[in-house]
């Protein structure tokens, strides 16, 4: 059994810290290598404190690999000496060839960002994330949209694959252009069903007293929230702007 987190943080705090890491990391000049090492160390520490399983997180961050490969392919074609891909690569003196620096720049930033987001995702269930965003004054309507999409996305996906099976059962192979009509109808009926479901869900909401305003759940905070935020701010600022 995995033990509970050492440090309890509210979703809001975790979102803020994640956001801070991403912003600070992206705005760091590519040649400040120790800073990036620092960010990674910070994230490892953060993950350990809130007890996120590191193996899983590392595996998930591999998702950015294809993206990096794509950049790697294009690096040789970039014009020499251009400050491509960075906000502040600017006029700093490069310790090694600029093309490699460009690659390093996007690689380390993409990977650190992905790492931070995956830690957030792994430590915070989606409903709590929504709740945290709500606490951070994220527009309520968008949140309701996200919540409903999250809830019905899978339902729709199942419906869609059922419809596809039904077509396949009638030996339908969408191969030729003139079959585009059937696909069009398929998509049409799919939207119609989604629309009808939307109406029924809306009725269900009305039936439970919905007046057009989504009710808010109260927000809880933990004792560790404020200290964690302050400490993170100090560490990240130190890494970013401290003596190189």
């Amino acid at each position, binding site marked *: 059994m995995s033990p509970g987190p050492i440090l309890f943080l509210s979703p809001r705090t975790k979102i803020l810290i994640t956001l801070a890491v991403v912003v600070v990391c992206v705005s760091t000049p590519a040649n400040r290598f120790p800073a990036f090492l620092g960010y990674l160390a910070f994230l490892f520490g953060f993950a350990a404190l809130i007890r996120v399983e590191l193996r899983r997180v590392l595996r998930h961050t591999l998702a950015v690999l294809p993206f990096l490969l794509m950049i790697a392919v294009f690096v040789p074609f970039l014009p020499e000496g251009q400050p491509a891909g960075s906000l502040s690569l600017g006029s700093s003196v490069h310790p090694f060839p600029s093309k490699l620096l460009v690659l390093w720049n996007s690689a380390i930033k993409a990977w650190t960002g992905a790492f931070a987001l995956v830690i957030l995702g792994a430590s915070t269930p989606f409903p709590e994330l929504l709740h945290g965003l709500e606490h951070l004054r994220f527009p309520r309507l968008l949140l309701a949209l996200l919540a409903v999409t*999250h809830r019905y996305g899978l339902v729709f996906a199942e419906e869609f694959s059922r419809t596809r099976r039904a077509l396949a059962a009638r030996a339908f192979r969408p191969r030729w252009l003139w079959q585009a009509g059937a696909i069009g109808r398929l998509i049409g009926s799919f939207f119609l069903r989604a629309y009808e479901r939307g109406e029924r869900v809306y009725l269900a909401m009305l039936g439970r007293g919905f007046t057009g305003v989504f009710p808010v759940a109260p927000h809880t905070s933990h004792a560790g929230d404020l200290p964690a935020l302050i400490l993170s701010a100090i560490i990240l600022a130190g890494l970013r702007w401290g003596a190189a």
Partner: protein
Amino acid sequence: MTLTPAVSIRDLSYTYPDGTFALDSVSLELKPGEVLGLVGPNGAGKSTLLLHLNGMLRANGGAVQVMGIPVKPKNYREVRRRVGLVFQNPDDQLFCPTLFEDVAFGPRNLGLQEAEVTARVRASLAAVGLQGLDNKSAHHLSFGQKRRAAIATVLAMQPDVLALDEPTSNLDPRGKRLITELIASFHHARIIVTHDLDLARTLCPRVAVMAQGRVIAEGNPQELFSDHDLLDQAGLR
């Protein structure tokens, strides 16, 4: 003085915007605590009737009262609190990220304090046997659990009337038995739409048979269900 009926429906008629004539001067009455079965073939108008109980559809003719309150736009809020409508498909009723949020949705709309909301959610989930599943997403519940969760969402409104649309459809025998026992354990006035004659026999001392938008017979299930002409007419066998 007579007791105010929980639900009173007088000469209710309804035509859908597309011209479908769905209800043809239906009259029914339900006493507090009473259980009424509503049976009839597909398309008879049963679901349409339920949607009139809390003003989700507006009658073209006739009147509906719930606990003596006329179902009219100015009373919708009150009426919707008093009538708990459980839809045929629980997926339509469970639209929140977690079970807790779903059950809390109604009480929060009523503007209750969060302590009271939590208490109602706990009590409702316990009443349907889903205690401890607060943080589950509806997507990860079995169909039978979703059915019970949908019932919990309306129980939390503490309604006087429960209207259940085919509560045992798509359930396995055990699931059917559980739902039947659950509904029997309630004390609300209940209207149960069903094609399941066994369910109607066990739960409903009185049954109304609908066909083509009209109530064609009313009485106790023993008598009605032995009338083969009636069953044929109502497409129930």
